[in-house]
């Protein structure tokens, strides 16, 4: 399942198919069982050790393309003996040193802006958990008042990089709603992790067909939240422009408006969904993963200028983010992360709320405790087909008009090749392609035919 596993753990699989031990129906189930066995893993393996693991990972993968072989090898020798055995004919130490050395960073003290929502988890936790330090950077993570301010502060170079919504770098590069400025998105922060929350008074109206006349909130016009909500409504025959009202509302005001009976629901970022439940004003109708499992949401973004003028700093920063994302991906680390990011300096929310979101064991607001380990997940790879999908929705809802060069924009903004290179350097196995097909509410998306995809929708804005 994961690209982030320890190669010397016999219980884990290095190849990405099915459950790693063969005893469970799926990897999710396996992980759940494993969680019961595993103690919380401490993150601070020494830097040297981490690099050694990374190099060893690559060697092991080459030696044992089949996991069965590797497992048999490890079980017969034991992990440390195995490492020693391999070191006999492959200079793991020397390779580690060669790998750890990269050019000196041009700028050590950086400022990275973020919005206090759980989507920013890797960017935030990298500070208290020392991931930035590990790559020789001194980063201040600065809480920022809103998406437009984040955009302006990165454009005027107060921030070196920032947490953004995945569609934002695309919109900025294309010049939708502002001057076109070349922008890049080298990493996805989180996948899944959003939800449709409705006011508690609508607990009997679970069928979207009854939602005509509802007032909904989303955090920003150029957001996955907006596109996913519109998609979901349209699939149920509700025209998001005519039958309901969708407004851009800052996340904390979503909960307040729900309480004040001013909106009927929202598709918003966490912690606000869980906070609405925690405060007893709303319930979680569905998680956004039920619309599109594995959808991207927030992103780590920087201007093209930063990427090209400070390549080493950019590489070090992106490596820390990728590394933190890999750490956040592991279910066993989630509790620890919730505690690290809860203080006022970061997300500033009750730990219980954050824990429910990150561990996926949560109260749904209707009296049941639900369990879904993948409620939010972390995977940095910026699939270019994600960008193409986002652009199809921008066009579908009239945010952009005319012909789009989908592939070129996707390539320029979603720096998948860069990310793949750096993922390899921190010891992960990135995908070998930069596009993939996926399914949104049962409907497959082919990134090669975006225009056909747009035309296939009955409900869309006429252009």
């Amino acid at each position: 399942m994961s690209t982030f596993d320890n190669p010397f753990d016999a219980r884990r699989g290095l190849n990405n198919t099915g459950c790693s031990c063969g005893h469970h129906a799926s990897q999710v189930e396996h992980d759940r069982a494993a969680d019961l066995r595993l103690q919380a893993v401490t993150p601070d393996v020494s830097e040297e050790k981490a690099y050694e693991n990374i190099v060893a990972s690559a060697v092991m993968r080459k030696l044992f393309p089949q996991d069965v072989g590797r497992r048999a090898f490890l079980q017969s020798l034991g992990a440390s003996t195995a490492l020693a055995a391999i070191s006999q004919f492959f200079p793991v130490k020397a390779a580690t040193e060669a790998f750890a050395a990269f050019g000196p960073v041009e700028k050590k003290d950086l400022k990275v802006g973020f919005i206090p929502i759980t989507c920013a988890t890797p960017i935030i936790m990298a500070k208290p958990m020392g991931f930035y330090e590990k790559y020789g950077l001194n980063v201040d993570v600065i809480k920022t008042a809103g998406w437009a301010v984040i955009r302006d502060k990165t454009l005027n170079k107060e921030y070196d990089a920032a947490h953004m919504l995945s569609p934002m770098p695309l919109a900025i590069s294309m010049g939708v709603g502002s001057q076109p400025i070349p922008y890049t998105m080298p990493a996805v922060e989180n996948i899944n992790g959003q939800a449709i929350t409705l006011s508690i008074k609508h607990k009997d109206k679970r069928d979207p067909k009854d939602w005509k006349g509802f007032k909904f909130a989303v955090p920003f016009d150029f957001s996955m939240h907006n596109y996913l909500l519109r998609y979901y409504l349209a699939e149920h025959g509700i025209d998001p422009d005519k039958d309901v009202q969708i407004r851009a509302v800052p996340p904390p005001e979503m909960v307040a408006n729900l309480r004040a009976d001013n909106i009927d629901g929202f598709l918003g970022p966490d912690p606000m969904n869980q906070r609405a439940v925690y405060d007893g004003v709303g319930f979680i109708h569905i998680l956004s993963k039920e619309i599109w499992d594995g959808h991207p949401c927030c992103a780590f973004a920087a201007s093209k200028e930063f990427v090209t003028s400070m390549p080493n700093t950019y590489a070090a920063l992106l490596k820390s983010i990728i590394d933190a994302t890999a750490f956040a991906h592991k279910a066993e680390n989630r509790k620890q992360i919730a505690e690290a990011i809860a203080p006022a300096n970061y997300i500033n929310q009750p730990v219980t709320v954050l824990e429910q979101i990150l561990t996926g064991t949560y109260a749904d607001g209707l009296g049941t405790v639900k369990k879904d380990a993948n409620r939010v997940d972390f995977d940095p790879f910026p699939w270019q087909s994600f960008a193409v999908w986002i652009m199809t929705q921008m066009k579908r809802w009239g945010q952009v008009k005319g012909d789009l060069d989908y592939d070129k924009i996707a390539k320029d903004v979603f720096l998948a090749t860069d990310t793949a290179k750096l993922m390899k350097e921190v010891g992960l196995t990135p995908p070998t392609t930069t596009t993939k097909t996926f399914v949104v509410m049962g409907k497959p998306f082919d990134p090669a035919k975006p225009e056909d995809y747009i035309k296939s929708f009955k409900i869309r804005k006429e252009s």
Partner: protein
Amino acid sequence: MSVSLTWRAAIVSGALFACLILAWHVATQGSGTAATMDPEYAKLMGATATQGKSAMPGPLEVGEKLWSHIKRPFYDNGPNDKGLGIQLAYSILRVMIGYSLAVFVAVPAGFLIGMSPLMSKALDPYIQVLKPISPLAWMPLALYTIKDSSLSAIFVIFICSLWPTLINTVFGVSQVRKEWLNVAKTLEVGTFRRAFTVILPAAAPTILTGMRISIGIAWLVIVAAEMLVGGTGIGYFVWNEWNNLSIVNVIVAIVAIGVVGMILDLVLARLAKLVTFPE
């Protein structure tokens, strides 16, 4: 008699305060009845949902929070979590810089405009158009052109606190009694000397009134500006606590903003008293 009036006023004030707090306390009592819930589920929920606690904090909670801020006003836990005292200091500093710049520009400019009826008439339309523009309307423009959020906030303070001082200075200078100016003329006093020894003292009370209105506006503006750009300051503090949906801290901040605003006004009122003269 005046002492007893002060005392009586104090008693009425105190009584009003007590009534207010009591009403607040009663209004935020909440139902207090615990909802019946599965214990495992209840553990994941907040007090509002489980114990029927009111979502609005009561005076005791606010008092407690206020006290904890007063006890530790200057802690610094990194860029996003600083004590209330530090936040207020940032805001006051910004207000002082922007406001001083405004006074520095407005008083001489007002003087010149006031002494020349031509300029006064010519510039009036501009002043009237610029005066009513909200600070929040300036903010995006400032951020976009100045490209520095701290300077933008100061600029917004400057531009918003400029007008009352300017207009009052113009008014004060143009309303100096004709007899006094005539006396100066017969004594053949030079222009500069006339400006400093006759007009300035005569217009000073009006100028100070303008400055007093300006500081009030500057203090109003800073909260809005800081909420918009974030970073530091009492406005940022409010925004940050709002994100956390911590109404207790928002109320604490409101109280702090009110008290500081009152102190700023009192200082200017004292200054105004120093320059008033009996006629």
